[in-house]
């Protein structure tokens, strides 16, 4: 499910002080967030060969970066300073944080860096870099056709069980 434009970004500490930061409306990340993923691979051009030898070792989740601009005139009196205090405390406590954005993003992360820049006491430009520990919904799949075949089999088995249940007296439970 994709995130709607007005879905809030929610940061919830899983431990520590149990803080929650809700970024909504004017506090939403100004430039959204970047969520890159890499494939670890080595490519070697053997002498004389017309194609490289590629070894694929598996995907890795790179750091997620959120960038925002909180202004009191958009979010209310004291909003920039409150946001700064909470993000700073989260960064300093160093406990896992759940990062959610609508149905699009749901990850357990560690805050690596929080960088605030003040234009004035009511205007805060901030950057948050987080390392992803657990990514829900977009887990890395083994890059092998055989695994996909097993998943297909599992889906077929599920469908067969559902059909069988439907034939039972009273239909499917």
């Amino acid at each position: 499910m994709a995130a709607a434009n007005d879905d809030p970004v929610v940061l919830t500490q899983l431990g520590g002080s149990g803080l929650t930061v809700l970024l909504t409306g004017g506090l939403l990340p100004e430039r959204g967030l970047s969520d890159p993923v890499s494939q670890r691979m080595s490519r070697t051009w053997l002498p004389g060969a017309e194609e490289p030898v590629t070894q694929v070792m598996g995907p890795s989740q790179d750091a997620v970066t959120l960038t925002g601009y909180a202004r009191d005139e958009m979010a209310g009196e004291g909003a920039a300073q409150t946001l700064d205090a909470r993000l700073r405390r989260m960064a300093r406590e160093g406990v896992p944080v759940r990062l959610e954005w609508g149905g699009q993003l749901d990850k357990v992360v560690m805050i690596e860096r929080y960088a605030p820049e003040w234009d004035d006491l009511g205007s805060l430009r901030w950057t948050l870099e987080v390392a992803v520990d657990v990514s829900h919904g977009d887990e890395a799949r083994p890059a092998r056709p055989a695994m996909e075949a097993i998943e297909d089999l599992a889906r077929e088995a599920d469908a067969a069980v559902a059909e069988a249940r439907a034939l039972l007296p009273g239909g499917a439970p």
Partner: protein
Amino acid sequence: MPVYYPRCLVRLEPVLDDFGATETDALDRQPAIEVIPESAAWECRPPGEAGVATVAIPWRDLPLDPRTLRDVRLSLYVWDAGAPTLGALGYSELAQVFVGFVDEPESAHGETAQTVTLSARDYQGRLMDTSSQTVSVRADRPLSACIRQVIDESGVPGFGDPAQHPAGLGLAIRLPDGDPTLQSVTGKSRWTPPSRASVWDVIAAMCRTLGMRAGFRLGDLIVRRPQPIDPERVKLFVYGQNVRELRFRRDLRPYARKGVRAVAWAPADRRLVEATYPDPPPDEVVVLQVEEGAWTPATLRQRAEALYHALGEREMTGRLDTVVMEDLDEATLTTLRSGDVISVRLRSGDPAVLHGMSRGEIVNHLIRHGVRPGVAEALADAWLQAEGGLATVYAVDRAAHEWSAADGYRLGIDFRSVIVPQEG
């Protein structure tokens, strides 16, 4: 485009130390632990040397403290998860590349990493470490029974009968060429092993007496007669296609040659035949077993002479490195071991290099570079004649394999041109 998905798994079967709380025999092998390592290296070495493996495992992934280990059997599996031949899971016993016992578990803790490094040798290593306690064996029993007697009497750790020793693994002995008796060659009722020898030395001596060779292939002890080269099993390497780095060495210095004693099994006579070259031999003699056949003293002497000249004059050694997991015939390379036969060719796509050119191309190339036509033709003939005499088939001396989570699979092969038939 060759694309591989190299994967690695380590299986550990530990026996934990109870620090004197119970009798040794009462200790049981713990359930196997399977871990994905950070890196692994395994090397298949020439006969007489045990194969080795080293794996590095993240400390947090190992559910036991390495300091509590008394004994560990280590199996290493490496496979291409994209290969369709290894079953639905992409991993099976076919992927096993090493099995042996850990010699040294080492755990290192620091700011940057916490890693457990396990160094192991294959089963041959443990047999080499254990002194033989056998005084003599009955020569009228099959060879396999004699080998079992030596192992059992010497109490090789970990090799006991699983029915009697909870931590024992037993040992599979395979003799595809038959299970002869020592008496069939010696004619005596008892056979006495060399004194102060290791269990492995005694097994090797028994096999030599029968013109056979012993070697481990993973967990099985294979005893058989030397086999001629099977062209189907020759792995193909071509510099210019599937080789990253290639070196050839040839030692041109004159040196004191060793004599050669060729030993072969003559099945029609049911006896070993020997021939030495030169005759009388110099002080040092290399004993080489050759494949069985209808050898006469004269034909075997010719073979010994050919081996003598090959060793003394024409032996070429080399090394190649590659990152492919299959050769050009799509045979897997992760199980390549010492004694396997490879074909190594040099082909260059560089238009300024003569390798791979036909006679006409060489002549034209030389003429373009100012050589007169008659001289160019003579040079081309000499070049092709010399190149045609070069060996292209080599025996693997050492096969050093590496896998790491960051860089994938690497293979380094030391090879030599003089090929003596190998077991298996």
